[in-house]
Protein backbone atom coordinates (compact mmCIF):
# COMPACT_ATOMS: atom_id res chain seq x y z
CA UNK A 1 0.00 0.00 0.00
CA UNK A 2 2.90 2.34 0.75
CA UNK A 3 4.24 1.74 -2.75
CA UNK A 4 0.90 2.66 -4.32
CA UNK A 5 0.64 5.72 -2.06
CA UNK A 6 4.10 6.84 -3.27
CA UNK A 7 3.08 6.31 -6.90
CA UNK A 8 -0.14 8.27 -6.31
CA UNK A 9 1.75 11.15 -4.67
CA UNK A 10 4.29 11.29 -7.51
CA UNK A 11 1.63 11.11 -10.23
CA UNK A 12 -0.47 13.78 -8.54
CA UNK A 13 2.61 15.99 -8.38
CA UNK A 14 3.27 15.55 -12.12
CA UNK A 15 -0.33 16.38 -13.02
CA UNK A 16 -0.27 19.42 -10.74
CA UNK A 17 3.03 20.67 -12.21
CA UNK A 18 1.62 20.33 -15.73
CA UNK A 19 -1.66 22.04 -14.83
CA UNK A 20 0.34 24.98 -13.46
CA UNK A 21 3.11 25.22 -16.07
CA UNK A 22 1.14 23.96 -19.13
CA UNK A 23 4.40 23.16 -20.87
CA UNK A 24 3.59 19.76 -22.33
CA UNK A 25 -0.09 19.03 -23.02
CA UNK A 26 -0.91 22.14 -25.11
CA UNK A 27 2.17 21.44 -27.26
CA UNK A 28 1.13 17.80 -27.71
CA UNK A 29 -2.42 18.83 -28.69
CA UNK A 30 -1.26 21.43 -31.18
CA UNK A 31 1.29 19.06 -32.67
CA UNK A 32 -1.05 16.10 -33.16
CA UNK A 33 -3.83 18.25 -34.63
CA UNK A 34 -1.55 20.11 -37.03
CA UNK A 35 0.08 16.82 -38.09
CA UNK A 36 -3.31 15.32 -38.91
CA UNK A 37 -4.26 18.44 -40.89
CA UNK A 38 -0.98 18.25 -42.85
CA UNK A 39 -1.56 14.53 -43.55
CA UNK A 40 -5.11 15.30 -44.66
CA UNK A 41 -3.86 17.62 -47.38
CA UNK A 42 -0.73 15.60 -48.19
CA UNK A 43 -2.48 12.27 -48.80
CA UNK A 44 -3.70 12.01 -52.43
CA UNK A 45 -7.39 11.31 -53.14
CA UNK A 46 -8.29 7.61 -53.18
CA UNK A 47 -5.21 6.47 -51.28
CA UNK A 48 -7.36 4.33 -49.07
CA UNK A 49 -7.83 3.94 -45.34
CA UNK A 50 -4.83 1.66 -44.74
CA UNK A 51 -2.37 4.44 -45.51
CA UNK A 52 -4.29 6.80 -43.24
CA UNK A 53 -4.03 4.33 -40.32
CA UNK A 54 -0.27 4.21 -40.87
CA UNK A 55 -0.08 8.00 -40.74
CA UNK A 56 -2.16 8.02 -37.54
CA UNK A 57 0.59 5.98 -35.90
CA UNK A 58 3.26 8.37 -37.11
CA UNK A 59 1.31 11.17 -35.44
CA UNK A 60 0.81 9.18 -32.20
CA UNK A 61 4.46 8.17 -31.83
CA UNK A 62 5.83 11.65 -32.48
CA UNK A 63 3.24 13.24 -30.16
CA UNK A 64 4.31 10.82 -27.43
CA UNK A 65 7.94 11.68 -28.17
CA UNK A 66 7.16 15.36 -27.68
CA UNK A 67 5.62 14.68 -24.28
CA UNK A 68 8.40 12.33 -23.22
CA UNK A 69 11.10 14.84 -24.16
CA UNK A 70 9.69 17.13 -21.47
CA UNK A 71 8.80 14.41 -18.99
CA UNK A 72 11.82 14.84 -16.68
CA UNK A 73 12.35 18.58 -17.18
CA UNK A 74 10.69 19.52 -13.83
CA UNK A 75 13.07 17.10 -12.08
CA UNK A 76 16.10 18.56 -13.86
CA UNK A 77 15.22 22.11 -12.81
CA UNK A 78 16.51 22.82 -9.29
CA UNK A 79 18.09 19.33 -9.16
CA UNK A 80 14.91 17.67 -7.86
CA UNK A 81 16.03 14.32 -9.24
CA UNK A 82 18.62 14.06 -6.44
CA UNK A 83 15.93 14.78 -3.86
CA UNK A 84 13.73 11.98 -5.22
CA UNK A 85 16.60 9.49 -5.49
CA UNK A 86 17.58 10.13 -1.85
CA UNK A 87 14.03 9.53 -0.57
CA UNK A 88 13.55 6.14 1.11
CA UNK A 89 10.74 5.10 -1.22
CA UNK A 90 11.28 2.36 -3.80
CA UNK A 91 12.92 4.17 -6.73
CA UNK A 92 10.82 2.30 -9.26
CA UNK A 93 7.82 4.23 -7.86
CA UNK A 94 9.34 7.35 -9.45
CA UNK A 95 9.24 5.61 -12.85
CA UNK A 96 5.69 4.30 -12.35
CA UNK A 97 4.48 7.77 -11.36
CA UNK A 98 6.09 9.36 -14.40
CA UNK A 99 4.71 6.65 -16.71
CA UNK A 100 1.16 7.10 -15.42
CA UNK A 101 1.36 10.90 -15.75
CA UNK A 102 2.79 10.71 -19.29
CA UNK A 103 0.08 8.21 -20.24
CA UNK A 104 -2.55 10.62 -18.92
CA UNK A 105 -1.16 13.44 -21.12
CA UNK A 106 -1.04 11.17 -24.18
CA UNK A 107 -4.61 9.96 -23.62
CA UNK A 108 -5.77 13.56 -23.19
CA UNK A 109 -4.15 14.46 -26.52
CA UNK A 110 -5.85 11.47 -28.16
CA UNK A 111 -9.28 12.44 -26.82
CA UNK A 112 -8.98 15.33 -29.30
CA UNK A 113 -6.81 13.64 -31.96
CA UNK A 114 -8.84 10.46 -32.55
CA UNK A 115 -12.14 12.24 -33.32
CA UNK A 116 -10.17 14.55 -35.61
CA UNK A 117 -8.71 11.50 -37.37
CA UNK A 118 -12.19 10.03 -37.77
CA UNK A 119 -13.36 13.35 -39.24
CA UNK A 120 -10.48 13.69 -41.72
CA UNK A 121 -9.83 10.05 -42.65
CA UNK A 122 -11.72 7.04 -41.28
CA UNK A 123 -13.40 5.96 -38.05
CA UNK A 124 -11.65 3.70 -35.56
CA UNK A 125 -13.56 0.67 -34.30
CA UNK A 126 -13.40 -0.67 -30.74
CA UNK A 127 -10.60 -3.12 -31.55
CA UNK A 128 -8.43 -0.38 -33.02
CA UNK A 129 -9.07 1.76 -29.92
CA UNK A 130 -7.90 -1.12 -27.69
CA UNK A 131 -4.80 -1.30 -29.91
CA UNK A 132 -4.19 2.42 -29.40
CA UNK A 133 -4.56 2.06 -25.62
CA UNK A 134 -2.16 -0.91 -25.44
CA UNK A 135 0.39 0.84 -27.63
CA UNK A 136 0.10 4.01 -25.48
CA UNK A 137 0.95 1.98 -22.38
CA UNK A 138 3.99 0.49 -24.11
CA UNK A 139 5.25 3.82 -25.45
CA UNK A 140 4.92 5.53 -22.07
CA UNK A 141 6.45 2.64 -20.09
CA UNK A 142 9.54 2.34 -22.29
CA UNK A 143 9.62 6.05 -23.11
CA UNK A 144 9.75 7.16 -19.46
CA UNK A 145 12.80 4.99 -18.89
CA UNK A 146 14.49 6.12 -22.12
CA UNK A 147 13.70 9.76 -21.32
CA UNK A 148 15.32 9.34 -17.88
CA UNK A 149 18.41 7.87 -19.56
CA UNK A 150 18.48 10.68 -22.13
CA UNK A 151 17.97 13.33 -19.42
CA UNK A 152 21.18 12.18 -17.73
CA UNK A 153 23.10 12.76 -20.98
CA UNK A 154 24.15 15.97 -22.64
CA UNK A 155 22.06 15.82 -25.83
CA UNK A 156 18.71 14.60 -24.56
CA UNK A 157 16.69 15.98 -27.51
CA UNK A 158 18.84 13.92 -29.85
CA UNK A 159 19.24 10.86 -27.68
CA UNK A 160 15.58 10.21 -26.85
CA UNK A 161 14.35 9.62 -30.44
CA UNK A 162 17.43 7.50 -31.16
CA UNK A 163 16.67 5.30 -28.16
CA UNK A 164 12.88 5.21 -28.40
CA UNK A 165 12.03 4.99 -32.11
CA UNK A 166 13.65 1.57 -32.73
CA UNK A 167 11.92 0.21 -29.63
CA UNK A 168 8.57 1.61 -30.88
CA UNK A 169 8.57 -0.43 -34.10
CA UNK A 170 6.74 -3.45 -32.60
CA UNK A 171 4.13 -1.05 -31.19
CA UNK A 172 3.56 0.53 -34.60
CA UNK A 173 3.29 -2.90 -36.23
CA UNK A 174 0.80 -3.98 -33.54
CA UNK A 175 -1.17 -0.74 -33.66
CA UNK A 176 -1.54 -0.62 -37.43
CA UNK A 177 -2.21 -4.38 -37.56
CA UNK A 178 -5.00 -4.15 -34.99
CA UNK A 179 -6.69 -1.46 -37.12
CA UNK A 180 -6.44 -3.04 -40.60
CA UNK A 181 -5.91 -6.80 -40.17
CA UNK A 182 -8.65 -9.39 -40.53
CA UNK A 183 -7.14 -11.09 -37.45
CA UNK A 184 -6.64 -8.14 -35.10
CA UNK A 185 -6.46 -10.30 -31.96
CA UNK A 186 -2.98 -11.50 -32.97
CA UNK A 187 -1.76 -7.91 -33.01
CA UNK A 188 -3.49 -7.09 -29.73
CA UNK A 189 -1.70 -10.07 -28.19
CA UNK A 190 1.61 -8.78 -29.56
CA UNK A 191 0.93 -5.37 -27.98
CA UNK A 192 -0.09 -6.90 -24.64
CA UNK A 193 3.06 -9.07 -24.59
CA UNK A 194 5.25 -6.11 -25.45
CA UNK A 195 3.65 -4.05 -22.66
CA UNK A 196 4.12 -6.82 -20.10
CA UNK A 197 7.75 -7.59 -20.98
CA UNK A 198 8.96 -4.02 -21.39
CA UNK A 199 7.06 -2.71 -18.37
CA UNK A 200 8.75 -5.31 -16.15
CA UNK A 201 12.18 -4.61 -17.70
CA UNK A 202 11.78 -0.86 -17.30
CA UNK A 203 10.47 -1.20 -13.74
CA UNK A 204 13.39 -3.42 -12.74
CA UNK A 205 16.12 -1.36 -14.43
CA UNK A 206 15.05 2.16 -13.44
CA UNK A 207 17.07 2.09 -10.22
CA UNK A 208 20.28 1.45 -12.20
CA UNK A 209 19.50 4.27 -14.62
CA UNK A 210 19.19 6.92 -11.91
CA UNK A 211 22.00 5.89 -9.59
CA UNK A 212 25.76 5.66 -9.95
CA UNK A 213 27.14 2.26 -9.01
Amino acid at each position, binding site marked *: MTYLADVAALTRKDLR*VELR*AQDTLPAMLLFVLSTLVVFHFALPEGTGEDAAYGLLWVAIVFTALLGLARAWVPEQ*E*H*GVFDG*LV*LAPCDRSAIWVGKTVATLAFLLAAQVVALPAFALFFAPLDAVALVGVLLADIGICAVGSLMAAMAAAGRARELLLPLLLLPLSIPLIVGGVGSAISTEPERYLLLLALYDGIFAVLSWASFEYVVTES
Partner: protein
Amino acid sequence: MIRAAGLEKRYGSRRVLRGIDFELPRDGFLLVTGSNGSGKTTLLRVIAGLAAPTRGKVQVDVHRGRVGFLAHEPLVYRALTALENLDLFGRLYRVPERRERIGMLLERFGLWEVRSERVEDYSRGMSQRLALCRALLHDPELLILDEPYASLDEHGAGLLDRELDELAGARTLVVSTHDPARIELLATQRLVLA
Protein backbone atom coordinates in the same frame (compact mmCIF):
# COMPACT_ATOMS: atom_id res chain seq x y z
CA MET B 1 29.18 6.80 11.45
CA ILE B 2 31.20 7.71 8.31
CA ARG B 3 34.47 6.07 7.31
CA ALA B 4 36.32 7.06 4.14
CA ALA B 5 39.48 5.27 3.08
CA GLY B 6 41.60 6.07 0.04
CA LEU B 7 38.66 7.85 -1.54
CA GLU B 8 39.21 8.91 -5.12
CA LYS B 9 36.79 10.30 -7.67
CA ARG B 10 37.48 10.92 -11.34
CA TYR B 11 35.30 12.41 -14.06
CA GLY B 12 36.91 11.08 -17.23
CA SER B 13 40.58 11.94 -17.00
CA ARG B 14 40.01 14.69 -14.41
CA ARG B 15 40.72 13.65 -10.84
CA VAL B 16 38.45 15.55 -8.45
CA LEU B 17 39.23 13.75 -5.18
CA ARG B 18 42.43 11.95 -4.26
CA GLY B 19 43.39 9.94 -1.19
CA ILE B 20 40.69 11.16 1.17
CA ASP B 21 40.73 9.40 4.54
CA PHE B 22 38.67 10.33 7.56
CA GLU B 23 36.43 8.86 10.20
CA LEU B 24 33.54 10.79 11.69
CA PRO B 25 31.83 9.34 14.79
CA ARG B 26 28.10 9.55 15.46
CA ASP B 27 27.04 13.10 16.41
CA GLY B 28 30.34 14.50 15.12
CA PHE B 29 30.56 17.67 13.04
CA LEU B 30 32.86 17.61 10.02
CA LEU B 31 33.68 20.97 8.48
CA VAL B 32 34.86 20.68 4.87
CA THR B 33 36.73 23.62 3.38
CA GLY B 34 38.76 24.22 0.24
CA SER B 35 39.01 26.48 -2.75
CA ASN B 36 36.66 26.39 -5.75
CA GLY B 37 37.02 23.12 -7.64
CA SER B 38 38.73 21.33 -4.78
CA GLY B 39 36.02 18.65 -4.71
CA LYS B 40 33.87 19.70 -1.73
CA THR B 41 30.59 19.16 -3.57
CA THR B 42 31.79 15.86 -5.03
CA LEU B 43 32.83 14.60 -1.59
CA LEU B 44 29.43 15.50 -0.13
CA ARG B 45 27.63 13.80 -3.03
CA VAL B 46 29.69 10.65 -2.49
CA ILE B 47 28.85 10.65 1.24
CA ALA B 48 25.14 11.18 0.42
CA GLY B 49 25.23 8.21 -1.97
CA LEU B 50 24.52 10.32 -5.06
CA ALA B 51 27.92 9.56 -6.63
CA ALA B 52 30.10 6.49 -6.43
CA PRO B 53 33.83 6.70 -5.71
CA THR B 54 36.17 5.67 -8.52
CA ARG B 55 38.56 4.13 -5.98
CA GLY B 56 38.62 3.53 -2.26
CA LYS B 57 35.47 3.32 -0.24
CA VAL B 58 33.16 5.28 1.96
CA GLN B 59 30.98 3.61 4.54
CA VAL B 60 28.00 5.48 5.93
CA ASP B 61 26.17 3.70 8.75
CA VAL B 62 22.82 5.39 8.12
CA HIS B 63 19.92 4.31 5.94
CA ARG B 64 19.41 6.72 3.02
CA GLY B 65 16.02 7.70 4.40
CA ARG B 66 17.74 9.12 7.48
CA VAL B 67 20.08 11.39 5.49
CA GLY B 68 19.25 15.05 4.97
CA PHE B 69 20.97 16.68 2.01
CA LEU B 70 21.23 20.33 1.08
CA ALA B 71 22.76 20.84 -2.37
CA HIS B 72 23.71 23.91 -4.38
CA GLU B 73 20.25 23.70 -5.92
CA PRO B 74 17.15 23.62 -3.70
CA LEU B 75 15.87 20.21 -4.94
CA VAL B 76 12.25 21.41 -4.99
CA TYR B 77 9.72 21.82 -7.81
CA ARG B 78 9.52 25.36 -9.15
CA ALA B 79 5.85 25.09 -10.18
CA LEU B 80 4.71 23.91 -6.74
CA THR B 81 4.26 25.91 -3.55
CA ALA B 82 6.41 25.45 -0.45
CA LEU B 83 3.58 23.52 1.22
CA GLU B 84 3.08 21.23 -1.78
CA ASN B 85 6.80 20.52 -2.07
CA LEU B 86 7.22 19.74 1.62
CA ASP B 87 4.05 17.64 1.64
CA LEU B 88 5.35 15.54 -1.27
CA PHE B 89 8.76 14.97 0.34
CA GLY B 90 7.11 14.41 3.73
CA ARG B 91 5.06 11.59 2.22
CA LEU B 92 8.06 10.03 0.46
CA TYR B 93 10.15 10.28 3.67
CA ARG B 94 7.29 8.87 5.80
CA VAL B 95 7.39 11.85 8.15
CA PRO B 96 5.09 11.25 11.13
CA GLU B 97 2.70 14.14 11.94
CA ARG B 98 3.73 15.64 8.62
CA ARG B 99 1.56 18.75 8.68
CA GLU B 100 2.69 19.81 12.14
CA ARG B 101 6.35 19.27 11.24
CA ILE B 102 5.98 21.23 7.97
CA GLY B 103 4.22 24.09 9.73
CA MET B 104 6.88 24.22 12.44
CA LEU B 105 9.75 24.34 9.91
CA LEU B 106 8.09 26.98 7.73
CA GLU B 107 7.52 29.12 10.83
CA ARG B 108 11.07 28.62 12.02
CA PHE B 109 12.58 29.63 8.67
CA GLY B 110 10.22 32.55 8.14
CA LEU B 111 8.31 31.09 5.18
CA TRP B 112 4.87 30.56 6.73
CA GLU B 113 3.43 33.73 5.22
CA VAL B 114 4.52 32.69 1.70
CA ARG B 115 3.74 28.96 2.11
CA SER B 116 1.12 29.01 -0.68
CA GLU B 117 3.24 30.86 -3.23
CA ARG B 118 5.01 29.00 -6.00
CA VAL B 119 8.73 28.47 -5.57
CA GLU B 120 9.37 30.11 -8.97
CA ASP B 121 8.25 33.39 -7.37
CA TYR B 122 10.70 33.03 -4.46
CA SER B 123 13.99 34.91 -4.20
CA ARG B 124 17.19 32.83 -4.06
CA GLY B 125 17.41 33.34 -0.32
CA MET B 126 13.82 32.14 0.20
CA SER B 127 14.51 29.09 -2.00
CA GLN B 128 17.56 28.31 0.11
CA ARG B 129 15.51 28.54 3.30
CA LEU B 130 12.91 26.21 1.77
CA ALA B 131 15.73 23.83 0.80
CA LEU B 132 16.82 23.81 4.45
CA CYS B 133 13.24 22.97 5.49
CA ARG B 134 13.26 20.07 3.01
CA ALA B 135 16.61 18.78 4.25
CA LEU B 136 15.46 18.92 7.90
CA LEU B 137 11.90 17.70 7.27
CA HIS B 138 12.45 14.07 8.34
CA ASP B 139 14.68 14.96 11.30
CA PRO B 140 17.70 13.24 9.71
CA GLU B 141 20.39 11.43 11.69
CA LEU B 142 23.03 12.59 9.20
CA LEU B 143 22.77 16.08 7.76
CA ILE B 144 24.93 16.99 4.77
CA LEU B 145 24.98 20.68 3.89
CA ASP B 146 26.79 22.00 0.82
CA GLU B 147 27.44 25.74 1.18
CA PRO B 148 24.35 26.29 3.36
CA TYR B 149 24.99 30.02 3.80
CA ALA B 150 25.00 30.69 0.05
CA SER B 151 22.25 33.18 -0.95
CA LEU B 152 21.13 33.74 2.64
CA ASP B 153 20.86 37.30 3.96
CA GLU B 154 21.97 38.11 7.50
CA HIS B 155 18.57 37.20 8.94
CA GLY B 156 18.52 33.85 7.09
CA ALA B 157 22.11 33.14 8.11
CA GLY B 158 21.16 33.85 11.71
CA LEU B 159 18.32 31.33 11.50
CA LEU B 160 20.75 28.74 10.15
CA ASP B 161 23.28 29.55 12.89
CA ARG B 162 20.61 28.86 15.49
CA GLU B 163 19.64 25.59 13.78
CA LEU B 164 23.22 24.34 13.54
CA ASP B 165 23.85 25.33 17.14
CA GLU B 166 20.92 23.11 18.19
CA LEU B 167 21.92 20.22 15.96
CA ALA B 168 25.65 20.15 16.77
CA GLY B 169 26.32 17.30 19.16
CA ALA B 170 22.82 15.87 18.68
CA ARG B 171 23.11 14.87 15.00
CA THR B 172 25.98 13.96 12.69
CA LEU B 173 26.80 16.93 10.48
CA VAL B 174 28.95 17.33 7.39
CA VAL B 175 29.08 20.94 6.21
CA SER B 176 31.10 22.50 3.41
CA THR B 177 31.62 26.24 3.39
CA HIS B 178 33.77 29.07 2.10
CA ASP B 179 33.17 30.92 5.36
CA PRO B 180 34.50 28.53 8.05
CA ALA B 181 34.79 31.25 10.69
CA ARG B 182 31.03 31.22 11.07
CA ILE B 183 30.76 27.63 12.30
CA GLU B 184 34.26 26.40 13.14
CA LEU B 185 33.58 26.58 16.86
CA LEU B 186 30.84 23.98 16.44
CA ALA B 187 32.95 21.59 14.34
CA THR B 188 34.63 18.59 15.92
CA GLN B 189 36.74 17.82 12.82
CA ARG B 190 37.97 19.75 9.84
CA LEU B 191 38.91 18.50 6.39
CA VAL B 192 40.74 20.85 4.05
CA LEU B 193 40.62 19.84 0.39
CA ALA B 194 43.39 21.06 -1.86
